[in-house]
């Protein structure tokens, strides 16, 4: 060995163990980021999650959180690597090596390590996704839509992250070699990083800031729209920033003051607290990242019970097993036809009820987009299509009595009145789209019938008004709604047969989703514009794919069949549900790995403290208690704060949606709570495993 290059090579080889943690952190970060972006940009997911929909926004928001977590994690890993490397660099510098001499070797080393670990992480990301996703398909649910496809554009995100990792390590390398105080470099490894001590006020202020940030972030877009009549810009999300500052203050309080009363027991946990305080900066950062990721996990996992519990409660509460409606120009089976079909399965039908409705044009207030993000409201004569029953038809169908004064109409909502968004309560004129005769009208409130809630709302008219506006209507603007029950226990095969047969009755003129509005199209044509529903923006559905999420969720004439909806729910929403399960797994994995790594680093950095304690006669039980005092907060605080904050935030969101918590939402939140308890159990097991490994490392 005669050159500096050879010397560096030998040292690098000897330091392989030291580089292990750095390699591991980079590998895990890249694996998680690649896996997440591969799923997020996968055609499998993008084809199902509607563009601009809440689920996509949530998926992206959690990705940003995970990205933030991974960036902090890799910066931390890089800092740790250089702290370990500092003694070596300092010694060489002390012996006369200049920064210029050391820079190429150091850069080569970090570039090699970073590139190798990052590329391995990127490569492992895809098999990881495939393994996880196909495990879902194998053990949980499967559908044709769940076939995994990758769009390798996701590699752009991994590449961007790769560049961040490389840049971080190179900047760190340069920073170390540029330092003029060589003694600082040499003793970097043993340097404490005490966190700035703030008073005990930081915990209550932290909680207040979290509440303030949540409220500001949530309500500011509404306020902006009201104030400026413009769509809110993305920067308004910055109003959520106090949440992160609040979280930071709470983490700081945990590290500096702890949560037990020091007045009563001033010496309780004194050693554990002081150890934590002197490594405070990194611990606070780690706690913050783990908390954010745990909150992300909770947010993602809540999606599943909130959708499925609400759906399950709605399906179970239906008064009829079957509901369907069809346009009058389509010939579907009548009562006899259905009875014959049921007979094939040794079943009979009962409670058969049918009632006609009219599809009428309603005027109303439309949001007209101006230049930029601005908009204004304007009354338009052909705003939307509404399905109107007469009073008699409504009574026949539902058994509920209703009385509507002439010139009035009522909208049919669900009992909780959570589906008002789709209903038009501002109509003043109804128009027969065959004759263009109109009827002046006023809104007279809501009536309730859960089964008749749909995106294209149902309304009820006075019998005489109905008669007058119905004159001259053509079958394409009329329809029938039908309910019936199965006498005895329903059979899934019958339901499936019914569903497929029902579709086969429809012509191509009915092959469109529920938000394709023929009246809105007429309005656009009158204004000389192309209706947006005829552009590529509109989701395409096909009779040939009746089992896809889009078809079952959006087809205008999709029947509601209790047993089919119960049995096929998981399959129909498989991509949604599994994507969010996937996100939850990624976030919780990241949080657990970060907490584990932090604990092992604390053990490594405080080794000498534990050795001193041993020399002072500390018993293994005492030492184990101190170890738990270190690992405990690293796992407990993110779990408690992240989960509680997200649980409360979710409740706030549910409440703020419509000013109330529905029975479905309360049921969903109860299941969410159980899931959180289960998740906390998993975190506890990882905590136990971590403590065991820390004890092993510290020879306790």
């Amino acid at each position, binding site marked *: 060995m005669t050159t500096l290059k050879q010397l560096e090579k030998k040292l690098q080889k000897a330091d392989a163990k030291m580089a292990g943690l750095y390699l591991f952190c980079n590998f895990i970060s890249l694996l998680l980021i690649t896996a997440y972006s591969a799923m997020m940009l996968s055609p499998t997911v993008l084809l199902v999650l509607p563009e601009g929909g809440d689920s996509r926004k949530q998926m992206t928001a959690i990705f940003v959180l995970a990205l933030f977590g991974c960036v902090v994690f890799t910066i931390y890993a890089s800092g740790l690597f250089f702290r370990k490397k500092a003694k070596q660099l300092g010694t060489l510098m002390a012996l006369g090596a200049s920064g210029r*001499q050391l820079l190429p070797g150091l850069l080569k080393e970090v570039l090699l390590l970073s590139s190798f670990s990052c590329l391995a992480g990127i490569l492992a990301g895809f098999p990881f996704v495939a393994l996880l996703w196909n495990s879902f398909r194998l053990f949980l649910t499967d559908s044709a839509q769940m076939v995994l496809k990758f769009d390798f554009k996701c590699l752009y995100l991994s590449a961007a992250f790769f560049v961040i990792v490389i840049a971080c390590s190179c900047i760190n390398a340069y920073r170390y070699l540029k330092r003029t105080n060589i003694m600082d470099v040499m003793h970097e490894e043993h340097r404490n990083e005490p966190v700035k001590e703030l008073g005990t006020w930081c915990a209550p202020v932290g909680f207040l800031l979290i509440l303030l940030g949540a409220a500001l972030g949530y309500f500011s877009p509404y306020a902006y729209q009201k104030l400026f009549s413009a769509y809110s810009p993305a920067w308004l999300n910055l109003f959520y920033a106090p949440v992160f500052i609040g979280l930071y203050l709470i983490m700081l309080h945990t590290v500096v003051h702890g949560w037990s009363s020091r007045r009563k027991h001033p010496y309780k946990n004194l050693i554990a607290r002081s150890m934590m305080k002197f490594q405070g900066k990194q611990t606070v950062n780690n706690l913050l990242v783990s908390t954010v990721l745990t909150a992300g996990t909770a947010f993602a996992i809540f999606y599943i019970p909130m959708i499925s519990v609400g759906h399950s409660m709605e399906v179970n509460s239906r008064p009829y097993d079957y509901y369907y409606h069809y346009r009058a120009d389509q010939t579907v089976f009548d009562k006899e036809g259905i009875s014959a079909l049921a007979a094939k399965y040794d079943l009979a039908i009962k409670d058969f009820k049918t009632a006609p409705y009219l599809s009428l044009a309603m005027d109303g207030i439309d949001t007209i987009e101006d230049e930029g993000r601005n908009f204004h409201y304007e009354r338009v004569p052909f705003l939307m299509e509404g399905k109107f029953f007469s009073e008699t038809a409504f009574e026949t169908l539902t058994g509920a009595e209703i009385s509507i004064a002439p010139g009035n109409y009522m909208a049919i909502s669900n009992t909780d009145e959570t589906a008002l968004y789709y209903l038009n309560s501002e109509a003043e004129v109804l128009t027969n789209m065959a004759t263009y005769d109109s009827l002046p009208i006023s809104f007279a409130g809501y009536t309730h019938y859960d089964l008749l809630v749909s995106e294209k709302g149902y309304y009820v008219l006075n019998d005489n008004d109905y008669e007058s506006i119905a004159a001259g209507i053509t079958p394409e603007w009329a329809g029938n709604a039908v309910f019936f029950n199965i006498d005895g226990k329903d059979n899934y095969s019958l339901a499936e047969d019914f569903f497929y047969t029902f579709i086969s009755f429809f012509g191509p003129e009915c092959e469109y989703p529920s938000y394709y509005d023929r009246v809105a199209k007429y309005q656009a044509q009158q204004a000389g514009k192309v209706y947006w529903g005829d552009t590529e923006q509109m989701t395409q559905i096909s009779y040939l794919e009746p089992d896809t999420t889009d078809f079952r969720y959006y087809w205008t004439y999709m029947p509601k069949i209790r047993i089919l909806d119960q049995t096929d729910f998981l399959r129909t929403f498989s991509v949604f549900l599994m994507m969010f399960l996937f996100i939850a797994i990624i976030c919780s994995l990241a949080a657990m790995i970060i907490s584990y790594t932090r604990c092992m680093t604390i053990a490594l950095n405080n080794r000498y403290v534990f050795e001193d304690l041993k020399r002072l006669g500390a018993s293994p039980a005492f030492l184990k208690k101190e170890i738990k005092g270190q690992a405990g907060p690293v796992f407990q605080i993110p779990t408690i704060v992240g989960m509680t904050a997200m649980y409360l935030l979710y409740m706030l969101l549910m409440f703020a949606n419509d000013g109330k918590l529905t029975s479905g939402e309360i049921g969903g939140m109860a299941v969410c709570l159980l899931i959180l308890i289960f998740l906390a159990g998993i975190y506890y097991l990882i905590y136990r495993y971590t403590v065991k490994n820390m004890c092993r490392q510290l020879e306790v």
Partner: protein
Amino acid sequence: MLYVKNLHKSYQSGNKSYSVLKGINLSVADQEFVAVMGPSGSGKSTLLNCISCYIPFEQGTITLGNKELKGLDENALAKVRNEKLGFVFQDFMLLDGLTIRENILVPRIIQGKVDLKAEKLADQLLSLFGIDHIAGKYPADVSGGERQRTAVARSLINQPLLILADEPTGNLDSKSSRAVIESFENARNKLGASIFMVTHDSFAASFCDRVILLKDGTVYKTLEASPGCQEEKRSAFQDRLLDAIREMSNINSDQTATGGI
């Protein structure tokens, strides 16, 4: 050979500035073995670190050989550290991944001049300091005394003008300390090295030609050993040293007491 004139150094802590060296003047002659002693906080290590060019200083001059160190850029300072100075640290600062022999050669490797002559010199140093039997071992496998003798050998590989030693016996037992001090004596007597050592250990200091006592960032007193190296003279020098230290401490306590009144 080393001249320090009016050296000032202060540290910043928050908004406060603490003056550590307050106009130090001293010199080290060729082949001289000089120790610096003083209580904690007197500025010993800071002085050594300034001379080593490890930390920058605000005022004064340090001249090594004929070269003024202040104002040199980082590359020139690195060259001085490598060619003109040798270093021995309290916690050895050996590179764990290299063998004892390789560690000794590190300054030469940095210089880019490892040839047969350098390797022969390394072997001579190994033999001179009695560590040739562990040449192929790694630092983790040898004793503290052997590690420190390795560090002394490493400090000599480039035949520097001056060896700077920071508490070289601080982490060692008495037997190992003795062996390290003997290494310094050997270095001076057989290789003509000059040594500037910071120490708390009056026994180690009693081997020196001269001991500078520092107090509160200034030179309190300089004591010179009587010529020769017999054990009796060394022991007498250690007694004088202890007396001087006691005197310095008494003045310190008197001042404190007066301040208290």
